[in-house]
């Protein structure tokens, strides 16, 4: 777990840096998706709701399109899909406790799972490992974002 400007950025997930989301391959081609600690900071630190549109479950979502929405008192915005695939499920814990998406963003606070169509091809636009964290750090420095 790397700590960059006060933000936790683990090296074992894939980041879509521009959108502040992460993807993590699970078993059977399933990709778990969540928001990064940086997104949590940008959203104001206290979420009112994290919602996956129920009718989208079982439907294909394209890379970059919204899989969920995040609401706080100072922010509303999408959680874009880091990969294309069928939206399998939402993390139901978020319904009663949306803030785990911020307090435990890479663990209990994951947002949705997607059955990826073309992970090997699409992961090329994501970054991971030490290089990925370094690229994320560069963006945070350029935009003067920190979690402190």
């Amino acid at each position, binding site marked *: 777990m790397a700590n960059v400007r006060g933000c936790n950025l683990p090296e074992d997930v894939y980041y879509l840096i521009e959108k502040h989301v992460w993807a993590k391959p699970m078993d059977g081609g399933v990709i778990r998706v969540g928001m990064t600690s940086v997104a949590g900071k940008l959203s104001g630190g206290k979420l009112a709701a994290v919602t996956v*549109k129920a009718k*989208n479950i079982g*439907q*294909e*979502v*394209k890379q970059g*399109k*919204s899989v969920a*929405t*995040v*609401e706080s008192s*100072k922010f*509303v*915005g*999408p959680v874009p899909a880091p990969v294309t695939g069928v939206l399998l499920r939402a993390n139901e814990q978020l319904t009663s406790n949306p803030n785990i998406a911020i307090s435990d963003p890479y663990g209990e606070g994951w947002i949705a799972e997607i059955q990826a169509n073309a992970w090997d091809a699409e992961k090329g636009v994501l970054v991971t490992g030490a290089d990925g964290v370094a690229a994320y750090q560069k963006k945070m420095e350029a935009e003067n974002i920190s979690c402190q």
Partner: protein
Amino acid sequence: MADDKVMIVMTSGPETPRRCATPFFFASLAAAMEYDVTMFFTIDGTLLLKKGMAETIYPKAGGKPVSAFLNEAIEAGVKMLACTASTELNDIALEDLIPEVKMVGGATMWQLAEDCKTVLTF
């Protein structure tokens, strides 16, 4: 995921500041959910689109001005339409309005409403 159309009809204006944040917030939220979102301004709502007006209205004391909510909605891709008749009601010239707004007649509102899955009015 189809881009379903939704519309928010905004009739509230500067005389009721507390009613002027949520409609924009709901519009931004709908855009984040990948809806194709239009806000249609009429009656007092059109006054919010006067240049400089939204900056002076605060839905909550110490909070953000309406302009912040308006700009977030525009950045999220919400389309802004205003009713031509309401500019007459409010004695506003077209050049007094922010450039992001497009003027349309009431018939356009009816056609759009028919195309929309949901229409909310504030």
